[in-house]
């Protein structure tokens, strides 16, 4: 992935989140306070607005900008979690101008570690980490198989439906959260679907 593809990834994500804004908010209403779609749409709209200005930045700086923009504009718990993930990608890719297999491995490992630290959570607790963590594990030294990445993200998202939420507002509902997909896992699925689409179009 180069700079232009990273920007394209963000544009695709913004578009998908805008399209699914109401769906995400509705999912959030079942387990939280119903504003996940609104917040994510606002955050990625701000990223879109920044993209033109950031086009000459190094890939690592671009990721940092995306991260801090998400922290500032998404707010809530999703802002720090998504923001931390992108900032960690940025710090992992300091010497990188084209993200290949090994760079994906190190970047995603750092992103997952960042989300876990910031959210004081781990995989299996019904959060966006249940998408990020298995997706991170799908990368290896080879050029990524984007179809497999997308399928893994989808599977991770779906599995949150069977989990008892242990973090965030949903945690207060306990067993009742079984049967509900985690909205953060759904927005993360869209993020990785957008990545897969972008990388397939660009031919890797």
């Amino acid at each position, binding site marked *: 992935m180069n700079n232009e593809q990273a920007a394209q990834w963000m544009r695709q994500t913004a578009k998908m989140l805008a399209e699914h804004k109401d769906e995400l*908010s509705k999912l959030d*209403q079942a387990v*939280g*306070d*119903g*504003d996940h779609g*609104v*917040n994510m749409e*606002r955050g990625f709209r701000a990223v879109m607005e920044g993209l033109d200005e950031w086009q000459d930045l190094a890939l690592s700086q671009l990721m940092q900008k995306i991260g*801090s923009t998400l*922290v*500032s*504009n*998404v*707010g*809530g*718990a*999703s*802002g*720090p*979690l998504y*923001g931390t993930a992108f900032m960690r990608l940025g710090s992992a890719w300091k010497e990188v101008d084209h993200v290949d297999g090994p760079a994906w491995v190190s970047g995603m490992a750092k992103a997952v570690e960042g989300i876990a630290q*910031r*959210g004081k959570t781990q995989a299996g607790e019904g959060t966006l980490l249940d998408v990020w963590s298995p997706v991170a594990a799908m990368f290896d030294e080879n050029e990524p198989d984007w179809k497999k990445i997308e399928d893994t993200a989808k599977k991770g998202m779906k599995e949150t439906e069977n989990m008892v939420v242990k*973090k*965030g*507002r949903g*945690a*207060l*509902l306990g067993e009742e959260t079984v049967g509900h997909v985690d909205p953060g896992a759904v927005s993360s699925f869209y993020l990785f679907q957008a990545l897969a689409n972008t990388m397939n179009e660009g031919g890797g």
Partner: protein
Amino acid sequence: MKKLMNDPERIVSSFLDGLVAANGTLIQRLEGTDVIVRRSSPPQKVGLVSGGGSGHEPAHAGYVGKGMLDAAVAGEVFTSPGADQFFAAIQAADQGEGVLLLIKNYNGDVMNGEMAQEMAEAEGIKTEMVIINDDVAVNDPDQRRGIAGTVLVQKITGALAETGASLQDAKRIAEKTVSRVRSMSVALTPCTLPAVAQPSFDLAEDEMEVGIGIHGERGMDRREVASSEKTAQLLLESVLKEIPSAAPLALLINGMGSTPLMEQHVFANDVIKQLDRDIQHTYVGDYMTSLDMAGVSLTLLAVDDELSSYLQAPVHTVQWTQC
């Protein structure tokens, strides 16, 4: 949904502008942010910052002023402000004596507060954070939410800070108050988010939701709507269980946004009649609301001489003024 507003996306910003326009001698808005700061603070005072999602007015901007907060951060409706906003508030409140963050126990607020603390520490500003979790509707203390009891923590800590106390002392009294304050709420109707335009949950005409938070999230228990007397008994029982000491109490009856003062006082009367304890301070009104939700919360604080004296100390803010 009928609401008096212009652009739902700009409702928080418009609210802050209005608050400052109406109270310009007391507060101002930090340019380019959603942070409300006190117009004048005594020199060398520890800074007191609170904040969180909007929709809980008058909390928190209404409590900025002498004897209470130095800065308040307003997020989007029911959404924690970003870390940069908390950081801007910390910078504005710092006078070299450090800053205490008073944060309600919600993941977003805690995470953004922690990130802001990291930013502040990198700038050489000493910070501490106290997390408020007074809601006994939740069993697990780690998951307990911060609700109306927050306002009493802000009042007491603000009064101590006004005397020129240190950051550590401010942290001490905030933690002491947190350890002795407990609340629980009941909703008669849900609330409606301006940007979502539909009620946060469905509640039948004859139902009430017990143990709700302040974000339109569902409560712990749904039951047939009861009289004020019975509702008082229900909430008192839950809250008192968590206040084991026989200490005198401060009582706060808080309206959730669209409960008339008449009903709040009907409820207050029922609570006071049933509460066979020494009540040293009583507050009734809208202190920590949930947009247009109908309902009340009951907060009890086990006071001692120290906490009592800070509750009685003078305060001059938009919402809370006493000589």
